[in-house]
């Protein structure tokens, strides 16, 4: 039992990060129909900016805030410089543009900083906490709590604020949203900023556990993309469930079957789900427009 608990807790920690990445995919996808493969780079930037500001002597909370703002600015730049000019391009072109952006960001990070792995101290020490016979790092609690806070915050934003509803309206029908006077360009910019900030926050939360380096973004983007698809693209609830599910499946596979094939298990499950439910777990059924 403690063993199972241990696997589930570590799975939920990793899964929370996947869920945040998947949520970033979801927000941008809803606003612009673009799947942003540079999403993993936002997580990496969040970690890297915090590390280097912290090492420059800035207190950790301030360093984290700077990292999140800087990454949000990069997200906005990505939208303005690459996504907006490519409006209406086919899916394959958009995939290549955002993958190109992720390679570019990786390259610039490597030049601006370095190729080493980095970490900064955990927020509240490294003394493990005992939960039902399993041990958890305090930082894991930060990651899980942070992910939950983001979800609650976003839910309130989308349901309780006018801006949030404008984003939902744009996601639902871009042209109709424009007709009722919503500035859809602003909504897109906001979505990129929000999505980048959430990615960066995930990076800030998880770096004390998993470390950060210029090339950690690819794996995270793939896992987040898979999690978003598993849940059903464009559905925030799907992103949360898909991310957590993916994390737990990986941890259980690594624990009970084979640590080498933990990624394989995740992909096999995703393939199985997509074959049974081609729109993902919570995806809406789309109809073909002729």
């Amino acid at each position: 039992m403690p063993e199972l608990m241990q696997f589930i807790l570590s799975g939920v920690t990793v899964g929370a990060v996947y869920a945040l990445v998947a949520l970033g995919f979801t927000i941008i996808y809803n606003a612009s129909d673009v799947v942003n493969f540079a999403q993993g780079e936002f997580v990496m930037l969040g970690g890297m900016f915090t590390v280097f500001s912290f090492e420059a002597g800035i207190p950790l909370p301030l360093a984290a805030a700077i990292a999140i703002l800087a990454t949000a600015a990069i997200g906005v730049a990505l939208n303005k410089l690459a996504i907006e000019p490519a409006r209406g391009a086919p899916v394959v072109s958009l995939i290549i543009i955002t993958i190109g952006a992720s390679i570019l960001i990786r390259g610039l990070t490597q030049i601006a900083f370095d190729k080493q792995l980095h970490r900064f101290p955990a927020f509240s020490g490294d003394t493990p906490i005992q939960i039902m016979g399993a041990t958890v790092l305090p930082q894991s609690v930060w990651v899980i709590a942070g992910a939950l806070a983001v979800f609650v915050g976003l839910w309130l934003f989308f349901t309780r604020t006018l801006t949030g509803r404008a984003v939902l309206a744009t996601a639902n029908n871009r042209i109709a949203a424009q007709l009722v006077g919503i500035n859809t360009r602003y909504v897109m910019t906001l979505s990129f900023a929000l999505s980048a900030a959430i990615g960066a926050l995930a990076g800030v939360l998880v770096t004390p556990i998993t470390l950060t380096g210029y090339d950690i973004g690819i794996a995270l983007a793939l896992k987040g993309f898979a999690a978003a698809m598993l849940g059903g693209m464009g559905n925030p609830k799907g992103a949360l469930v898909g991310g957590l599910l993916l994390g737990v499946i990986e941890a259980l596979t690594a624990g009970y079957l084979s640590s080498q094939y933990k990624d394989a298990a995740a992909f096999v499950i995703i393939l199985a789900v997509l074959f049974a439910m081609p729109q993902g777990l919570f995806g809406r059924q789309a109809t073909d427009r002729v």
Partner: protein
Amino acid sequence: MRLSSKTNTLLALAALIALAPLFFPSSYYFRVGSLIFVNGLAVTGLVVLIGYAGQISLGHAGFVGIGAYACALAPVHLGLNPLVAAGLGAALSGAIAWLVGRPILRLKGYYLAVASLGFGALVSMVLANEAGLTGGPDGMTVPDPGLRALLKSVGIDLSNAAFWYAFSAVVLVIGAWLALNLYHSPTGRALRALHGSEVAARTVGVDVARSKLQAFVISAVYASISGSLLALQNKFITPDVAGYMHSIELVTMTVLGGAGSVIGAISGAVILTTLPQVLTVFQEYEQVMLGLVMMLVMIFMRDGLLPSLSRNIRGRGQ
């Protein structure tokens, strides 16, 4: 008499390949050339899938891996000549594509992208983890097929680099010829019809599922043979050939040059194969430049480099 555009294309391609060595200052250029042809072959297969049929695959390096490892494994375990092994790998890739393609190709757009990505990831994981069979991440050696020795015995003595340049060029030209023929065949027309609109294609009687599957199997066989060629000329293979980044590179080459035409896509292979070789001088900036090229071409030349350029030139002529 006017030659058809298909013949023109093939003649131009063959002439370029034959004349290029006149300007090669060293055998290193033969090496880059054969690498271009190897990538060009996989990319030609992707033209059938992406350019003709309009389906995306982010897992085609999986088939490249199958083709490459067939050439390494079959000689050791089955005692086959590496060239026969390449054929076996191509057949295996085709069969796997047929099995996997049926469920995968029901998905569309990004869902198809993630499913094919998952397939590619599975293949590269097996290659990296089954160390007892494949040598794991360290890779394994590939035996020589003995073709160069055969040529030497009939009096044609080519250097190693020149031989693989010529051999992969011949395979590429055959591959391009087949793909160009396919374009005008009933199958090719069906593929292009479903690219435009699946619903419309279905109403005029195209078996959409079957056509997509054909394109997927054909492109998998191309990728597999490309992998075999790579393994044979490198004489060594690692699981990286089946990795996600290689899949992305292949799709990028295809779309960068222009997925709608074989020559366009091959020009994409030329650019993305030579760029890293040129950029080793500025090693620090390699990724930055690569990312920029990918983005700029896709933003400003939506149909790919070659179609956009030729339209510009034609536009100015009028």
